[in-house]
């Protein structure tokens, strides 16, 4: 008797827990709204553009030729090239605890006021506490636009090169 009850209760508990876990998952409508197209023709050099994707801010920074010339290989590897121009496109959330860093045009870097983290103009962390560079979202370059949420050719190459970490 006890064993039968135990078995029934066990199956029931597992089922209930599974249902609870799934109910708490993001809704399909939330997941489906995961694509955004950004037009890059309006971007001006060294002016930060902020777009929105999946509710998160997206940083779009068109680099000036001088900036590109001075970059290290590590920085260049993170550039997204559209029509010959180099862009930083990343999720504008500090990798420490998710605050939005501010762009300082004069210093060519990002400062996160929350806990004092800093990133360079390629989104690479230069001062702790953030442990890693700002994340590059899945993207696909189409003419003068990028579609976020879609994994294009260039994104896959970055991934293979280990740039996305």
């Amino acid at each position: 008797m006890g064993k039968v009850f135990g078995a029934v209760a066990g199956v029931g508990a597992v089922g209930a827990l599974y249902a609870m876990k799934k109910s708490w998952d993001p809704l399909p409508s939330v997941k489906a709204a995961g694509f955004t197209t950004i037009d890059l023709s309006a971007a001006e050099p060294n002016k930060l553009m902020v777009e929105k994707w999946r509710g998160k801010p997206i940083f779009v920074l068109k680099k000036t030729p001088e900036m590109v010339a001075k970059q290290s290989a590590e920085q260049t590897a993170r550039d997204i090239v559209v029509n010959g121009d180099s862009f930083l496109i990343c999720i504008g959330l500090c990798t420490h605890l998710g605050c939005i860093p501010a762009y300082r045009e004069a210093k060519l870097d990002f400062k996160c006021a929350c806990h004092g983290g800093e990133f360079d103009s390629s989104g690479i962390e230069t001062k702790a506490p953030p442990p890693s560079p700002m994340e590059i979202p899945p993207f696909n370059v189409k003419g003068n636009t990028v579609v976020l949420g879609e994994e294009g050719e260039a994104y896959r190459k970055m991934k293979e090169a280990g740039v996305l970490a």
Partner: protein
Amino acid sequence: MAHFTKATSVHDWLNQRLAIDTLQRVLSKEYWIPKNINFLWAMGMVLAFTFGILLVSGIFLLMYYQPNVDTAFDSVNYTIMREVDFGWLWRHVHAVAASVVFLIIYIHMLTGIYYGSYKKGREMIWISGMLLFVAFSAEAFSGYMLPWGQMSYWAGMVITNLFSLGSLEFNGLVEWIRGDYVPGQAFLDRFFMLHVLLIPLAILGVIGLHFGALRIPHVNNQDGEEFDFDEEAAKYKAGNKKESKVIAFANDFLSKDMFVVSIYLIFFFYLVFWHFGFAMDPINFDPADGLKTPPHIYPEWYFLWSYEILRPFPKDPGLVAFGFAQVIFFLLPWFDRSPNAVPASRRGLFFFWFWAMVVDLIILTAMGKLPPVGVYSLIGEVAAYGFIALWVILPFITRNEKRV
């Protein structure tokens, strides 16, 4: 079935069916309290009262609050504050009580530590009390989300991000908790549910456990004196009230409790009517904006000390230190190796440990509020190391304590 007789009064009718006489005896008339305790022991009653105030004011807010990302902010700041008659009162009462409840909890905890009330059979009182602290923290955090202002949003962002557990990158877990990639509608709805139903239920349950845990070991006293409650109670019942070391909870001790509660309530309503602003963050009067972080993010004052322990370190060690700060108090009964359950003032080194801990917590709290720059981050870092160091040395300084 029990034998029922024709009732002689309403009291008798109820007594036959609900045993109210027995209940009253067990719960109040013969619930024994040591005579030798000071007003600090009334904090439990003050807390129970404050919890009641939170419940009642919360129910009134609940009638007009709307858990929707588009309307939540206005339902609080416009509807409740301006349209509802006395809506402002419920909001201020709720906000002030939510803040003051932590002040009283901290006093309650520190009293317990000072007088050694977590030892010798009283471990469960301490543990259930710490569980209550955790539950109240979760309750405060989930409630802080509901007005959906800037601080609500970004506190939600930062705190839920902690669950990615640093370099382990459990982003799926973070998204699961939020029900979205960022705090949004799903997040607001589930935190609303947690705040008004699930966590309060848990709190009620743990309060029951906390009271139950007191029943066998009984409440400690100011001298840490051990005596036989049954013997003392017998003296009391025999009419030897002067010699007995205990008194009945009701109405003897209750009158003292209620005296402290009434003083407290004067202070409480003074805050509600004249200084409610301290319980509200100005940044939270801007509606939530996912594309703009406020320049300086900090939690409410009662979380500042643990926030400051997280802040000065790099991400992973910071998380470990933060986790340490959350759980370490649970282990106090085992870290303190001394057999003495007497006031800290009679325990030698422990006395200094206690006050060093208090000072350290105050420094951490102050630094947590200030921006993390220059000398402030340095002081914060030293205090964070100090906190950890104090816990590491505790077993050593208490091991050789003389028995008093």
